[in-house]
């Protein structure tokens, strides 16, 4: 595409910025990619916004705005233009305030830096394309896998939001674990009481189809067009269901302590799990399983399999409350029973503490310690307990020994992940997209996880989760008519070589590999059996696919390879041995905010730095890094989110790390200093992470001196491989 010229709008921030605007104006007017240069005092105020509108009209939408952080002014500008029906999708922003004037007290240096970055952005603008709104019609049907409390609530919420729902349950009835709970703290209700109204609503709801005895085998497709393959009751053959989104609500599995010899579970019938006790209490069948005898002495053991290096390392959260609920129920049914709870720490959040207190008041005995031995003597079960507070052993009889076993992920979570594409936590539960803010979203778009399938949860938490999960899908599906601006990765299928790197590495699982039916007909060495397909409307615009694509087939439509490379080249104009420049690619998630906050705090760092924004660090390819050196950079850095905290989906920054590592290996292999490129993780609470990092890269630029490009001893990159 031929280079187009853009207008430049410079903001003086009310004449408060320490930059030479006269110099910027005169220099930029000489640039052959500019149509006009306008200096405004306040781009963010009414007059400035009006100027933006007129410049867009005069320049076919091509405008470079050099002002404060786009993170702040862009929303205002978008809103202003949206109200007037003006397209602003091609506007490019340069931050000359937080990223330049506020952090470099030397006006000349700051002006020079600003000029270089504006020049680079003009080059980016030169081949920008307009982003257009797109509409996609999809079925307004959602499938909920799992018919426990979370699944039921999700189905009801989605139905209320206007969706048709299929609720799929593997057992013969809805209700999951909750229907067997005699008492659910802190509600004071039984599980059945909590469920009954909801079950009635689900059954009456004409938009909800209930499938019991249904097992989901695998799922194909993507958001808006999933196909669920399942087997149903009395029918071994496989059935399919078209659906637009999936709610994972498969609940949890209670740990079976078969391997734990010390408790004699599975050997002694009077040793049971807490959930087995719940069922007895709910069904009114509380008795010794061995002989049907009366239950008078009960010993409960907490943390069986939880907080254990051998089984589950973490706490299962709900078992303490679970044990207390059951203790209270035992005492209600058998007032003269003796209940002892052996624990390490009693963990009852908020008002559950009051239930704990109540249980102590009615006589439940809490013993901090561990079980040291369980054995049978004359047909009776006996338990030896070590009390760590009294530092003594006590031996008690036990009609029932109840094990509060760990809460584990349900069966089938891993198997479905292979086709549904969500990630799995170390503990086997479904992994959230981002631990702080995106708990119900999974890595895969159109798949949410609610309730205990994500982590052990109380009933109330599962219900809240389900309501929130329904909202997330509603936001995505928009009632079946998805309207969005086409901004993201666009695949040119003719260029695809079928390597599947994009499909494997996309943080959100968007690219699909599609079988090429006609491929067989081509000659043997030409045929590509599978090629990628990308639905841009499903794309999160990180650019990982682009940085990995060996053939340039997939590129972000707002930051193509050509845009990036010409920006790198233009930014680095004038960089050289006498003018060593450190180029920093920064992600527009955590890195931009760290750099902005460093700016707001006016934290000084060297002005020999030039910054280029990317949506995610994962957008930066090895080629981009090498292009920077080719263009004359002395050192190159990538500023990214903290390890494991990539905000685009968890892996963009790790992809970037790989690119940096490989770029380094290449540099070392051809006799450069590999340390000229590096990657740094940061977040805005610690702005000095950025200033320290970039100062280090400036130091390296100085220490290593001129690069082979500067000294003229380097071949062009294209020739290296030959």
């Amino acid at each position, binding site marked *: 595409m031929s280079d187009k010229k853009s207008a430049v709008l410079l903001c003086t921030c009310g004449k408060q910025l320490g930059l030479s605007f006269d110099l910027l104006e005169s220099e930029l007017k000489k640039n052959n990619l500019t149509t006009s240069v306008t200096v405004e005092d306040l781009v963010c105020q009414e007059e400035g916004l009006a100027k933006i509108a007129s410049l867009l009209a005069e320049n076919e939408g091509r405008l470079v705005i050099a002002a404060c952080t786009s993170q702040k002014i862009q929303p205002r500008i978008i809103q202003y233009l949206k109200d007037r029906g003006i397209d602003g999708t091609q506007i490019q922003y340069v931050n000359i305030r937080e990223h330049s004037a506020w952090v470099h007290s030397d006006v000349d240096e700051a002006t020079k830096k600003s000029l270089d970055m504006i020049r680079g952005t003009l080059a980016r603008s030169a081949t920008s394309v307009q982003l257009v709104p797109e509409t996609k019609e999809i079925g307004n049907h959602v499938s909920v896998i799992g018919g426990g409390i979370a699944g039921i609530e999700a189905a009801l919420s989605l139905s209320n939001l206007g969706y048709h729902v299929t609720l799929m349950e593997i057992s013969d009835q809805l209700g999951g674990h909750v229907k067997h709970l005699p008492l659910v703290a802190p509600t004071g209700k039984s599980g059945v009481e909590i469920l009954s109204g909801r079950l009635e609503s689900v059954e009456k709801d004409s938009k909800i189809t209930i499938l019991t005895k249904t097992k989901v085998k695998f799922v194909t497709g993507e958001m808006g067009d999933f196909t669920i393959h399942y087997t149903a009751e009395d029918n071994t053959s496989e059935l399919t269901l078209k659906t637009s989104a999936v709610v994972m609500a498969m609940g949890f599995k209670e740990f079976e302590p078969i391997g734990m010899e010390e408790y004699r579970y599975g050997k002694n019938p009077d040793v049971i799990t807490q959930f087995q006790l719940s069922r007895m209490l709910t069904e009114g069948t509380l008795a010794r399983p061995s002989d049907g005898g009366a239950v008078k002495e009960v010993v409960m053991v907490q943390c069986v399999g939880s907080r254990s290096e051998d089984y589950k390392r973490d706490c299962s959260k709900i078992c303490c409350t679970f044990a207390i609920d059951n203790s209270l129920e035992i005492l209600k049914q058998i007032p003269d029973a003796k209940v002892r709870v052996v624990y390490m720490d009693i963990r009852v959040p908020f008002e559950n503490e009051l239930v704990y207190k109540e249980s102590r008041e009615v006589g439940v005995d809490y013993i901090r310690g561990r079980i040291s031995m369980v054995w049978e003597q004359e047909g009776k079960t006996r338990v030896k307990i070590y009390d760590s507070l009294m530092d003594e052993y006590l031996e008690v009889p036990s009609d029932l020994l109840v094990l509060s076993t760990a809460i584990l992920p349900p069966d089938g979570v891993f198997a479905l992940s292979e086709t549904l594409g969500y990630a799995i936590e170390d503990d086997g539960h479904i992994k959230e997209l981002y631990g702080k803010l995106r708990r119900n979203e999974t890595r895969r778009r159109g798949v949410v996880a609610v309730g205990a399938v994500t982590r052990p949860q109380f009933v109330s938490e599962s*219900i809240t989760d389900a309501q929130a999960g329904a*909202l997330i899908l509603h936001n995505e599906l928009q009632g079946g008519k998805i309207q969005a601006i086409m901004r993201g990765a666009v695949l040119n299928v003719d260029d695809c070589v079928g390597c599947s790197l994009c499909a494997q590495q996309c943080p959100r699982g968007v690219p699909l590999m599609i079988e090429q039916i006609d491929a067989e007909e081509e000659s043997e060495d030409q045929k590509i059996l599978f090629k990628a397909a990308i639905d841009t409307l499903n794309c999160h615009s990180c650019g990982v696919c682009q940085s990995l694509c060996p053939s340039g087939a997939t590129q972000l439509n707002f930051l193509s390879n050509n845009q990036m490379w010409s920006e790198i080249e233009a930014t680095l104009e004038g960089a050289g041995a006498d003018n060593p420049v450190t180029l920093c690619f920064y992600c527009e998630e955590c890195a931009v905010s760290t750099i902005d906050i460093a700016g707001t705090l006016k934290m000084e760092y060297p002005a020999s730095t030039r910054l280029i924004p990317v949506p995610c660090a994962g957008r930066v390819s090895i080629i981009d890094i090498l292009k920077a050196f080719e263009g004359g950079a002395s050192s190159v850095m990538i500023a990214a989110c903290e390890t494991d905290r990539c905000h685009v989906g968890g892996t963009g920054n790790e992809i970037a790390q790989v690119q940096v590592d490989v770029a380094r290996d290449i540099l070392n292999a051809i006799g450069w200093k590999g340390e000229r490129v590096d990657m740094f993780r940061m977040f805005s609470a610690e702005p000095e992470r950025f200033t320290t990092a970039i100062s280090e890269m400036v130091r390296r630029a100085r220490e290593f001196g001129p690069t082979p490009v500067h000294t003229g001893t380097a071949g062009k990159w294209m020739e290296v491989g030959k």
Partner: protein
Amino acid sequence: MSNPVLIIGAGVAGMTAAVELADSGIKTVLVERLSTTGGNALNLYKAFPTDDCFYCFEGNRWRPGIRKCFYRSALTEQPNIDLKMNSQVEEISGLPGNFSVKLDIGPQYVDPKKCTMCGLCIEKSKAFSLVSPQCQPQAVVYDPEIEDTGTTSAAEECPTKAINLDAKSTKKIISVSDIVIATGYHEMQPVNVDEYGYGTHPNIITQLELARILDPLGETKGVLLRPSDGKPAKRVMMVQCVGSRDENYYAYCSKICCVFALKHAAILTQDHEDVEVSVVYMDIRTYDRYEKYYRDTRNAGVEYIRGRVSRIEPQDDGSLDIIVFDSLLNKYLKFSVDIFVLSSALEPSAGSSQIISSLGLKSASGFIGAINPETEVVVGNRIYACGSALGPSEVPESVTQARAVVSKILQSKE
């Protein structure tokens, strides 16, 4: 035009609810008592469980990226959000769907849409300041209590004429369809808990105060210094359940103080050099995956002592001698520490009881109680609550609850 939704409190929960509703085309009035949004999170430095900062919440759906820091959340730029800073709800009457709400709207000395944070006024007068680089709205604040010769010229020379020194507070009555209570929590000032001596010695502080010390954006720039004399602190003792699980104060467990304390213990042992940390506790309550903080800090050498603090003896050198009864060893132990940190109870924020009584809601130990506890966000007829207004909550829970509230509101409108 239907009535907007009222959201009381612009912490993480309230902001999430506002942005979600706004993106769904529902108008909201977001009322915040203070001059910046963000609530407690703004002062908490590193977040759990992600160990990055506390300053973000989900951004608008129409903006790229999956979350936005407070400073770039653009709450003032959204036509569907009417942000009322320095404001309070005085009275609520009327019926569900058409509540009548009397607002006390604080004086708007600085117009947040005009302020560019250029810094001119701050240079001219001490009465102007930036609360935090992460503040939202991104604007300076004016303190009329500080008299200064520079204020008038600051106002006159402001490039955008954003400053109005004569601004007055106003009253306004609005009609709203639904109410979302997101008033958060307050860290109890343990002044009355005599045994811990809070307020009697500068080196006895709360966890929130410790967060400010650890924060690189705070006064000490993240260096651990003794408040008494500014000398480096090397020995820190924390005590859990101050005012929580205590019939004299709050009988409930404040739920997040353990992980809060352990997060600080982790920062102190991992990011600082040669700092010794001990934690005095009754039960360590690190639920679910938070157990990691317990494992990691024990491995990092944090000493956990099950027991109670029995005496504090200030020493002449600024240190504190602490006598602890260790209930596992069944004996008294003596420690010398530089900073003694109280994990103080998290209590309902001011005004919670008034909201409960004026709207006839249930109380959960002073926090807002749900109609049916299993449906935690529905607290009345077209009245919802989310976040720590319902009881101490972590950020992820607050966000999920805020989304559940929006889900319920949209469900009621479908």
